């Protein structure tokens, strides 16, 4: 067996040029598939990533009992929020972990009363990540020492007919179910192009929320932002020991609609990727068939020297497997380089779309992920094709009369 392995290895490198062509073809094909996978993830991030940030982060932690009453946004403080924050920040994929207070309330002025979600945030920590902060069109974003300042959406500002500097009244319940009311100044207006969200969500600083809702130094929600979508499960698992009964959920659980949209999109992309595999598979098959048929004479020689058909086939299958392995390895490295560098630089695909200033929720630049998750699904078929492509012509050639095979041109 060792002899066959050595022979096969030598045979591969005897025809260096041919081997290099096959490896380049396999490598490029695999690398392209990795790029495709990485792009799909990247697009997902570009299209849904900001939406998820606006809606409430990749992972959210609430106090026990929250889920049951989630519709009414109960003010249940998380007992050990600081330790959870620290635990989350020590996980490598976590970009930020911030505290919030979330509650329902009414925003009123002379135009009427509008039911809204009031979210207390840590402005300095959220500013670099939040699409909201990046789309404040008039006035300014919050700061943590704001006094009676509120950030509202363009949609609500239009409804209530207010400008920066105008006053509105916020009504909400404190932890003790008493109504709390306070008149606040509109410090800024954000415009993300999605009226349903703009009408619904208004922001105040966490400190103000704590005093307004009687939650000194407490918070009701921890929002954890990750680098990429799809990294939630391991992070959630890593966080579990710090929780002590608190509830944790990923955006997929909080927003099943969004999850389904992504799943559907991925379904279509999966069909495309099967066809892509088919194309690459045909290429590899064709090349390897050529490579083996070219060696019909050599097979005749081996047969003339007394190798049995089964021995010849073993040799060729081994060669196919080796080529396959080398090709897959080349593809992996090439793919990593390709996706890695594009992942840093990003591709501005909005230029293909002919639009420059798109909705704030969708980013015009896509950063592919490494695309490793699917690599085995791609590499295994390519590897199998490599073996099969060696098997069939070797079988055919080994059945020939040695003399005939020797004459094959």
């Amino acid at each position, binding site marked *: 067996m060792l002899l066959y392995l050595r022979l096969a290895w030598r045979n591969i490198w005897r025809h260096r*040029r*041919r081997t290099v*062509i*096959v490896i*380049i*073809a396999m490598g*490029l*094909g695999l690398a*392209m*598939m990795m*790029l*495709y996978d990485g*792009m799909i993830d990247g*697009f997902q991030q570009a299209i849904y990533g900001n939406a998820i940030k606006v809606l409430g982060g990749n992972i959210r932690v609430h106090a026990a009992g929250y889920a049951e009453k989630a519709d009414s946004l109960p003010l249940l403080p998380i007992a050990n929020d600081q330790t959870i924050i620290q635990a989350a920040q020590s996980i490598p994929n976590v970009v930020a972990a911030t505290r919030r207070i979330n509650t329902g309330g009414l925003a009123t002025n002379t135009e009427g009363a509008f039911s809204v979600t009031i979210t207390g945030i840590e402005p300095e920590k959220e500013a670099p990540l939040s699409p909201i902060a990046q789309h404040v069109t008039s006035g300014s974003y919050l700061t943590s020492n704001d006094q009676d300042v509120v950030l509202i959406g363009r*949609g609500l500002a*239009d*409804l209530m007919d207010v400008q920066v500097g105008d006053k509105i009244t916020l009504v909400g319940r404190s932890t003790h179910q008493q109504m709390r009311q306070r008149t606040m100044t509109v410090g800024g207006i954000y415009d993300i192009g*999605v*009226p*349903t969200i703009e*009408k619904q969500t208004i922001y105040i600083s966490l400190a103000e929320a704590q005093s307004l809702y009687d939650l000194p130094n407490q918070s009701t929600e921890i929002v954890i932002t990750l680098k990429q979508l799809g990294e939630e499960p391991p992070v959630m698992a890593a966080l579990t020991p710090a929780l002590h009964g608190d509830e944790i959920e990923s955006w997929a659980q909080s*927003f099943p*609609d*969004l999850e*389904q*949209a992504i799943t*559907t999109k991925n*379904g*279509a992309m999966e069909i*495309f990727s099967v*066809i*892509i595999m*088919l*194309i*690459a598979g*045909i*290429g590899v*098959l*064709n*090349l390897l*068939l*050529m*490579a083996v048929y*070219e060696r019909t004479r050599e097979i005749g020689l081996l047969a003339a020297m007394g190798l049995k058909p089964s021995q010849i086939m073993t040799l060729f299958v081994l060669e196919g497997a080796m080529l396959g392995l080398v090709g897959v390895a080349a593809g992996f490295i090439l793919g990593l380089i390709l996706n890695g560098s594009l992942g840093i630089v990003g*591709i501005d*695909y*909005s*230029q*293909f*779309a*002919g*639009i420059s200033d*798109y*909705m704030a929720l*969708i980013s*015009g630049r*896509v950063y592919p992920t490494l695309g490793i998750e699917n690599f085995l699904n791609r590499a295994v078929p390519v590897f199998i094709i490599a073996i099969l492509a060696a098997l069939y012509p070797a079988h055919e050639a080994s059945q020939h009369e040695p003399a005939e095979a020797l004459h094959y041109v």
Partner: protein
Amino acid sequence: MFQLLKMAYRNLNRNRRRSILSALAVSFGLALLLFIASIVNGEMQGAMQTTIALQSGDLQVRAASYVEEKSSLKWADLIANPDQIAAQIKSIPHVTIATPRLFASGIINTSREAIGVQLIGIDPTSPANAPIVHGMIAGSFITPDDQNGILIGQTLAQKLGVKVGDPIDLSANTANGNVNEQNFIVRGTFSTDTPSYDQSTIFMPIAKAQAFTATQNHASTIFIMLDDRDLSNSVAAALTSPGYQILTWQKMNDLVLETEQLANGYMVIIYLIVLAITATVIVNTLIMAVYERTREIGILAAIGMKGRRIMSLFLAEAGILAVAGIAVGLVLGWLICAYFARYGFYIGNIGTNYQFLLGDRIYAMLTLSDTINLTIVALIVTLIASLYPAILAARLEPVEALHGQ
């Protein structure tokens, strides 16, 4: 030239399996491109068709001060004497339908919860209601003088647990700022295969809606359909008159249009990847073929064939491969698209807002321009991919090539 093509054809025929496989790679590549284009196009056109048919129409005429988001019912924001105005609009060339509609936001109260809905007052006899009439699941369509009958979406009916004949407690804002409440009877349920629409829309005759919301003889909009959608701008110009705003479907559906453009940008990158894979296959196969045929090329060169002509021969081979592959790819792509155009892709309810109505199925839709563009791109990419192998063949030294193995 003809001789070259004949030689190229014979060469390809000599290595039939390899030629077929190479052409097949091009075929699958093109078929995939067509398929992707048709799905994207189908999704967007579908969204556009649905949104136009159910929501925006081709044109709408509203009072100048009407703000859609507020769905205001103040008389000043509405169109007075809508029937008369609709009749006038109907007489303009290219207008096929003009019908008044009244929008109000309502709340359905059940013992358990309150669900917000959009209340639409329609003229039940108007052909503009065709998508609803065709989508009736149970019960019957409303009649113009029905005083307490409504139509509700099938999804909403299931959510509320009501069926035809059951009462529903509905409240809505009125023109003078009050809230009116009344029990209505579900006359029928409909499905437009657009989940977000079916779970939030209620229809009642416009006369009743006007009475219910205290908007006597006023309508929010005149809903207009044209015989040719592309004429929307010129018809809009003809309709212009002070005190009214004219909205075209392009303007009302800018979100759909922008998303469409964005999706196209996204797809360009996917196209490039598919093309790159196809090109990789072609380049490597041809390079391999050049090396395999080194001796043959040497003989051609030795009997006096010039480098340029050898290159042309290889390019001709690639050209034949490309044309054959493209022909098969067009048939294949067309078949796949035809299948999905007929049966569609089930996508379920993907949470969309009122500006972007997407059905629960995507139907592939292949346009002629996509087909032509992608075919040309596939041809060019294949030919470019064969350039390097052809140059390689042309550069071989005759003597060395003759010895080559």
